[in-house]
């Protein structure tokens, strides 16, 4: 309800108001990427019961390991082993791990998939320039071949969101 009210406010106000203010943003803003470009999500079928998810993190950006989550539908993802990240000390959260560059994660499925498989990722990261992005859900659809023994092509998540 509240979320919805905010969305309505955003929709209306952004049309009349947001763009005018944004024109006055100081120098930092134009150099920053929107989150879906800073953290590009893709995935491919390795075999009908295994998906490989991948994030390509742009230079100067990083993702938090413990904020990275994957789900799939209609077949569930079993527990996953996220690769080790680079350790980073955080005054509030203690030692945390981050990913830079490319990170790939194997997603074992609860049972072999066939046909369309929707893979969702939620990630959260920051830019070295000194900003952080809120948790960012991204989604893509893979076509799992009936007898696919060969890895399929990578599919990229489509840009998502109300305004871009």
């Amino acid at each position, binding site marked *: 309800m509240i979320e919805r009210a905010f969305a309505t406010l955003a929709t209306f106000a952004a049309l009349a*108001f947001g763009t005018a203010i944004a024109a006055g943003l100081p120098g930092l803003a134009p150099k920053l990427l929107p989150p879906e470009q800073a953290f590009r999500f893709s995935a491919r079928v390795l075999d009908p019961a295994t998906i490989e998810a991948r994030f390509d993190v742009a230079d100067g950006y990083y993702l938090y390991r413990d904020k990275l989550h994957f789900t799939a539908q209609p077949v569930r993802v079993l527990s996953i082993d996220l690769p080790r990240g680079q350790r980073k000390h955080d005054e509030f959260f203690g030692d945390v791990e981050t990913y830079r560059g490319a990170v790939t994660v194997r997603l074992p499925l609860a049972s072999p998939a066939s046909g369309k498989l929707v893979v969702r990722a939620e990630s959260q990261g920051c830019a070295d320039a000194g900003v*952080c*992005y809120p948790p960012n859900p991204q989604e893509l659809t893979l076509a799992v071949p009936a007898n696919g023994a060969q890895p399929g092509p990578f599919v990229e998540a489509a840009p998502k969101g109300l305004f871009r």
Partner: protein
Amino acid sequence: MAAAAVGAAALAGGIALYQHGETSAPRDGSAVLALVLPDVDGRQQPLSQWRGKVLVVNFWATWCAPCREEMPHFIAAQTKDGAKGLQFVGIAVDQVDKVREFADEIRLNYPALIGGLGAIELSKALGNDLAALPFTIILDRSGSVVHTQLGPLKPAQLDALLDRLLASP
């Protein structure tokens, strides 16, 4: 219901601004002053209660390290110049328990209002195109937006701006 009222007020403010067009002159901050959000105790706090003050509205979150890093300077500035009419207000894109814990830990001396993830949409409506944090809007005593900033404010730059704003009636 409160949120809907905020939406309507913000919309009205937005239209007024739009009619003024894009100029480098200070912008109307009525959409900011029309916000009403709960504090950590669940009490609804209208930002209009700080009308007439130099108001620094900072969107932040506990999961945002650069946000947390600049807050001690805000606390110091609030202590130093609160009596001169300076008011910081944090809008947390976060959960109330995390905000309360962090606010206690750093002895936050200005209101931390809870926006949840919806506050990101709110900040977008106020000019935060990238929906990133920290995002800060500074209003002068007349309620005009004199500065918006994505990313941390440099302490010296902030102090100079606040000194100037506090010196003018």
